[in-house]
C-alpha cells in the first residue's frame, strides 16, 4: 500500500465488446423479428388483402390512437412507474370534449381534450411524485374514477358532438395517402423521441427510472421531473381522446376501455423494462404495430371468435419465446450460471 508505483497507470483492460454497433443493435431487436415474422405470415396467408391500400389505411388508423397512448405509457414506464388509467382518461377526454358546450368545434374539442388529459395526468403525477404513492394504486383509483365520470357525464349514453360530421371528416382526411390521424401519431413519436433522447429532461427521466436514489443525490429534481412525466403522459392521452373523436365521431362510454393493457403490452414487447430506466421509442412503435397487426391478421384470417383470444395468446407466447431463443442461448454462456 505504501508503494507508489513509478510506472504510469496501466491501461484498463481491452474493450470487451462484440462486433459492430449495428450488428449489436440488430441482435437486440427481438420485437422487430416478431414483427417481421408476423408480416411474413400475413403475406403468405393473406398477402393481397393485407398489403392492399384499404387494409394498410385501416391498419394505420387502427394504430394511431393506441400509438399515442403507448407513447404516454412509455414515458411513465421509463420512470419505473405504470399508468393503468390511460384508457379511462382517454375516454374522459373524449366524452367531455364531445359534450362540453355541445362540442361545437373540432378545435375547441382539441383544447378541452388536452386539458382534461393534462388534469388527470397532473393528479396522478402529484400523488406519485409528491405524496410518494405507488403508481399502480394511484392510477387504479384514477382508472375507476375517470371511467365513472364518463358514465356519470352521459349516464352511460354516448355523447355525439355537434361537430360530429367535422370530426368524421377529420378522421377520414388523408395527406398524400396517409391518414391525418396517423400523421399526428408519427409527429408525436418524433416529439417524444426528441424529448427523451436530446434533452436534459429526457436524460433525467432515464436517470430516475434507472436509479432514483442516485438521481436524487446527484441533484436531479426528481419530484418535478416525475410530475412532468405524468402530466405529459396525460396530455398525450388527452390528444388520444380527441383523435378518438376524429375516428368515431362520438364519445362512447367505452372509449378507451382496456387500452391500458394494450399500451403496457406494446411498451413491454418493445423491450422496455417495467422497473424503469430502459426502453426505446422505436421499440414502443414496433410494439404498437405488432399488436395492431395481430388483431388485423386474425380478423383477415377470419379466425373463429371463440378461438381468436386463444390464437392471440398463443401467438404472443410463441413469438416472445422464439425471439429470445437465440438471445438466451447466447446469454447462457456469458451470464452467471445458475440453477
Amino acid at each position, binding site marked *: 500500500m505504501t508503494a507508489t508505483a513509478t510506472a504510469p497507470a496501466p491501461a484498463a483492460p481491452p474493450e470487451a465488446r462484440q462486433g459492430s454497433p449495428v450488428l449489436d443493435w440488430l441482435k437486440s431487436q427481438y420485437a422487430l423479428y416478431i414483427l417481421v415474422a408476423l408480416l411474413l405470415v400475413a403475406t403468405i396467408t393473406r398477402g393481397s388483402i393485407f398489403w392492399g391500400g384499404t387494409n394498410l389505411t385501416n391498419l394505420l388508423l387502427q394504430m394511431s390512437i393506441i400509438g399515442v397512448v403507448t407513447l404516454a405509457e412509455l414515458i411513465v414506464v421509463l420512470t419505473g412507474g405504470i399508468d393503468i388509467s390511460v384508457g379511462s382518461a382517454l375516454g374522459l377526454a373524449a366524452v367531455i370534449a364531445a359534450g362540453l358546450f355541445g362540442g361545437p368545434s373540432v378545435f375547441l374539442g382539441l383544447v378541452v381534450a388536452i386539458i382534461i388529459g393534462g388534469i388527470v395526468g397532473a393528479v396522478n403525477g402529484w400523488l406519485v411524485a409528491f405524496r410518494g404513492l405507488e403508481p399502480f394504486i394511484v392510477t387504479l383509483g384514477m382508472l375507476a374514477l375517470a371511467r365513472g365520470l364518463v358514465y356519470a357525464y352521459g349516464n352511460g349514453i354516448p355523447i355525439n358532438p355537434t361537430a360530429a360530421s367535422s370530426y*368524421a371528416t377529420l378522421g377520414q382526411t388523408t395527406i398524400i395517402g396517409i*391518414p391525418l390521424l396517423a400523421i399526428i401519431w408519427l409527429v408525436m413519436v418524433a416529439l417524444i423521441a426528441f424529448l427523451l433522447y436530446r434533452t436534459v429532461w429526457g436524460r433525467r427521466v432515464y436517470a430516475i427510472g434507472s436509479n432514483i436514489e442516485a438521481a436524487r443525490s446527484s441533484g436531479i429534481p426528481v419530484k418535478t421531473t416525475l410530475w412532468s412525466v405524468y402530466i405529459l403522459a396525460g396530455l398525450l392521452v388527452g390528444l388520444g381522446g380527441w383523435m378518438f373523436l376524429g375516428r368515431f365521431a362520438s*364519445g362512447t362510454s*367505452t*372509449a378507451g376501455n382496456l387500452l391500458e393493457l394494450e399500451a403496457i403490452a406494446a411498451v413491454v414487447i418493445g423491450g422496455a423494462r417495467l422497473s424503469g430506466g430502459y426502453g426505446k421509442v422505436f421499440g414502443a412503435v414496433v410494439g404498437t404495430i405488432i399488436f395492431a397487426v395481430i388483431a388485423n391478421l386474425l*380478423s*383477415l384470417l377470419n379466425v373463429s371468435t*371463440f378461438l381468436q383470444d386463444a390464437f392471440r395468446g398463443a401467438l404472443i407466447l410463441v413469438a416472445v419465446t422464439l425471439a429470445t431463443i437465440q438471445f438466451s442461448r447466447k446469454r447462457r454462456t456469458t451470464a452467471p450460471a445458475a440453477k
Partner: protein
Amino acid sequence: QIYPSSTPAQGPAGGVQPDVSKVVIGFAQQQLQAPYFAAMQVQSEDIAKQKGFKLLFQAANKDPAIQLNQMQAMMAQGANVLVVNATSVKGQKEMMTQVASKIPVIYIDTGVPGTGTTSVSSDNLTIGRESGKLTAKRFLGLGKKSIKMVILTGPATDEFVGPNRRQGFLDGLKEGGLAYEIKGEQSGDYAQDKGQVAAENMLAANPDTDLVLGLNDSMALGGYNVVNGQEKYKNVYVAASADGQKEALALIKSGGCDGRYISTGLNSPSLAAEQALGIAVDIATGAKKPSDFPAESFTKAVGIGCDNIDEYYDPKSIF
C-alpha cells in the same frame, strides 16, 4: 377522404352474387360475454352451413373501436353484406353511416337508428311487459297487491336494451294490477356470477324483498342461486325481462306454477339470426333490394311463464 359518400349502399358490396355459394356475409357481433351472443354465433354458423354461404364472424368485446376494425377487415375480405350487432346505439352513428355507404348493413339485436338497411331485433319493451304481466298475475294469485322488488341491471353502458326491458316489465306489473316499490338497483353486468353478488347484497340490505328482477336470465339465475334453499329468503321470487335461456326455462318448468322463477320474455338468438341472415342473403343474391325492407322489424315477442313453458322449453337447444 376514405368514405366519400354518406348515402347507404343500394346493392351488395362487390355486386350481386349469382349464387348463394358465392355469397360472403360478415357478422360483426358486439361481444361474446353473455351466452345469448355466443348462441347467436353457433346458430349463424349452422345457418351458413345449411344455406351454403360463407360467414365471417367476429366479436368486438363491446368496443366500437374494435368493431370498426373488424368490419373493415370483413370488407377487405370481400363481404357482400354485413350483419351487425352494434356495440353502441348512439355512439356509432357516424361510423355506421360511413360503413353503410359502402356495404349494406343489417342490424341484429342492437341497431343504430338512421343508419344501415334494416334492423331485426326483439321488441325489448314488449317482451319485458309480457313477462311483467305474468309476474303480476302470480303475485296477485298469492294474495299480494303490492310488492317490494330489487333489479339487476346491465352495465352502465347499457343504452337502450336494458332500460327498455326494465320499463316494459314495470309497465307490465302495473297493467297486471300489481303495485311495486323498487328497493334497490345494482348492475350485474348481464352475467350470472355478477348478478348473484349484486342480488346477495341487495337482499341483505332489503330482507323484505318479494321479487328479484333480472334484465336477463343470466343475472336472474344468479339471483335464484341466492334465494334457492335459503330459509330466510323463502318468500323471495325471481323473474327476468328477457331471453328465455335454457336454464331459466328449465327452472320455470320444474317449479311449475308455484316455482320461484316466475317468468321471462322471449328473446331468441336463433329467431333473430335466421331472420337477419335471410335478409342478408336476399340482398346479396339480388332477390331483394335494400330499399325493400322497413327500418325496423321485430321478432316474435311473448312472455314465458308456467302456463306456456312447454311451447318454448327444449332441453336440447343450445341457449
